């Protein structure tokens, strides 16, 4: 039993080592994806273009504008001269936000002691970014308000302090870096793509070349065949995982806070359950083309869209939340984030681990059953 499995595994390894193109793709594609996604997929809103229409042209208006642009989030892309230019800069995307200070700005505050209204026009096309920009603007104007109030009260000889002061601290990811949040998702996505596609192709190749017939007639049983054939790809995928962690550390400062050994064990479980999905696809496909298409379809989209990699599952409609269970990446991402970012142990995610094991077992059983039926009737 073991000897036959080893014979098949050895042979498969030789195929892989001789197929330089596949080997190259399996090793370099993961790094390539990591670098591209790591740098390109970024939800941090920085360097916001700010256009200013200052109709007041007073010291006060200038100091208000200064207080906004002095934060690192904004830079002033242009000063406008009249209202008609507002539409132009927003249309041309030369400004993401336009601030319009009315001509009576300083007069209302300093002379009439009234509230002055300042208009902010924010480009709402990207709703997420717009919300973030609004909150930056809010904070900037609250700070300016407080500074101004303090000065006014000081002139009156009254000491002014706000009653409540909020001190938010972001736990786990203090700088709110999206890369830290995204890297675990990337690892999950890359590993599932690499392992499912390669495994699904390997068995189909034997079907296409007719060599599967020879194996069926030999005393090899389906479990030996499927285990032996996927073993080399498990090894390569595991190597990929190490490589991604290393590159993630070098390029994106992603440090594993929790136990490295636990992380590696969990990664192996994840690779195994991905591989059983690959085996399943291989068993139901009749050609490499079909297998490749199915494998891409089953891994790429779900692991990006449904896994919680980018979009939070909690905000999805209930029915879609149920559908998210079709990808093991969903469970692995929770585990990865727990270990890498939070540094917690297995007690925090054992339920996800059970899901992963169940997922892998289910697909493997179905694959073996389908394979047995196929080889008995085809």
């Amino acid at each position, binding site marked *: 039993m073991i000897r036959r499995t080893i*014979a098949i595994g050895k042979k498969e390894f*030789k195929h892989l080592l001789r197929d330089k193109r596949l080997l190259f793709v399996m090793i370099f594609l993961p790094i390539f994806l990591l670098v591209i996604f790591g740098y390109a997929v970024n939800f941090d809103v920085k360097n916001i273009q700010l256009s200013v229409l200052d109709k007041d042209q007073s010291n006060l208006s200038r100091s208000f504008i200064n207080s906004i642009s002095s934060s690192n989030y904004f830079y002033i892309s242009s000063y406008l001269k009249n209202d008609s230019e507002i539409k132009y800069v927003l249309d041309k995307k030369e400004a993401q936000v336009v601030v319009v200070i009315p001509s009576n700005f300083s007069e209302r505050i300093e002379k009439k002691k009234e509230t002055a209204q300042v208009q902010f026009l924010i480009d709402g096309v990207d709703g997420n970014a717009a919300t973030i920009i609004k909150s930056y603007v809010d904070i900037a104007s609250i700070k300016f308000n407080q500074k101004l109030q303090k000065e006014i009260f000081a002139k009156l000889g009254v000491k002014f302090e706000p009653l409540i002061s909020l001190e938010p601290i972001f736990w786990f990811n203090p700088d709110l870096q999206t890369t830290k949040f995204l890297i675990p998702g990337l690892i999950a996505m890359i590993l599932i793509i690499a392992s499912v596609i390669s495994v699904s192709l390997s068995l189909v190749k034997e079907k296409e070349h*007719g*060599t599967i*017939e*020879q*194996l069926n007639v*030999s005393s090899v049983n389906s479990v030996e065949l499927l285990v032996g054939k996927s073993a080399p790809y498990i090894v390569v995928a595991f190597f990929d995982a190490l490589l991604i962690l290393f590159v993630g550390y070098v390029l994106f400062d992603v440090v594993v806070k929790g136990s490295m050994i636990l992380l590696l064990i969990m990664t192996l479980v994840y690779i195994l359950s991905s591989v059983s999905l690959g085996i399943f696809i291989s068993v139901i496909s009749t050609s490499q083309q079909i297998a490749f298409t199915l494998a891409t379809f089953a891994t790429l989209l779900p692991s990006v869209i449904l896994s919680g990699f980018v979009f939070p599952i909690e905000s999805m409609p209930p029915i879609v939340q149920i559908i998210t269970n079709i990808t093991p990446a969903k469970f692995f991402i929770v585990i990865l984030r727990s270990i890498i970012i939070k540094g917690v142990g297995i007690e925090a995610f054992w339920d996800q681990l059970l899901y992963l094991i169940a997922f892998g077992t289910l697909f493997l059983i179905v694959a073996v059953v389908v394979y047995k039926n196929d080889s008995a009737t085809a």
Partner: protein
Amino acid sequence: MYSIEVNNLTKKFGKFISVNNISFKVKEGEIFGFLGANGAGKSTTIRMLCGILAPTSGDAIVGGYSVLKHPDEVKLNIGYMSQRFSLYNDLTVEENINFFAGVYGLKGKLLDDRKKWVLKIANLNNKENLLTGSLPGGIKQRLALGTAVIHKPKIVFLDEPTSGVDPISRRGFWELINDLSESGTTVFVTTHYLEEAEFCNNIILIDAGKLIAEGNPKDLKTNYLLNDIIEVECDNAVKAMELLEKENFVEETSIFGNNLHLIVNNFYKDKTQIKLLLSDKNNIRVNRVDKIVPTLEDVFIHLLDNKTND
């Protein structure tokens, strides 16, 4: 002693009967030819005999084990080689041998001995490290046979082993089959080449899932075709065939290369009847008219024609 006993073997796929109640026996160590047109049910039968396809009804005892009850034991005791030469082209000769040896659990001295044997019969001594994909078809075919019987099975199934191989390699391959048979291995072989069927000790012919003839090549030629066969060498064989088909002394016609073979009945007296019709009445030059011993091809065409006429 019989190494294969097939009893009322039947396989249905839905309503389609692929193999219809066939029975036959194969003696130990003989070369047994299994013939039939494409789609006649040959592959289905072989798959059942190899224990990878369960029969709908009936059974076969292969190497002492029932394919119905003990398919796994059957698999251990047989070798199988298909027309696709199931070798891995991206592996070397030795890697292919090692792989199949590993699948059958060979090791130690036995492994070394068998490896040497396979290299010898495939004429690949000192060429262990060549990529299998680079070998010529004839050598690949011998290597495929070698790996198929690396575990010294008592019975080997060869499914159209010589298709796509040049005539000289084919002849050499049959010598190899003879050697196997002489060393006591039962060889069960299917082929499309009827001249190859002449090399078999016994033959069965199936058509549409049914067994329609069996026996050794000599018996088949005498028992199944009682009429005389006349070979006619003439110009314009197609035209001549059309003309001859209408004559009452001709039962069947078929073309063999430039020649015509006629199966004639009692109305046939001598060659003047043919010459009269062709050269005198229709101006077709006739070179030669001879009564010949039928070939297996004559017999099978006759048998299969009768079937389709039913």
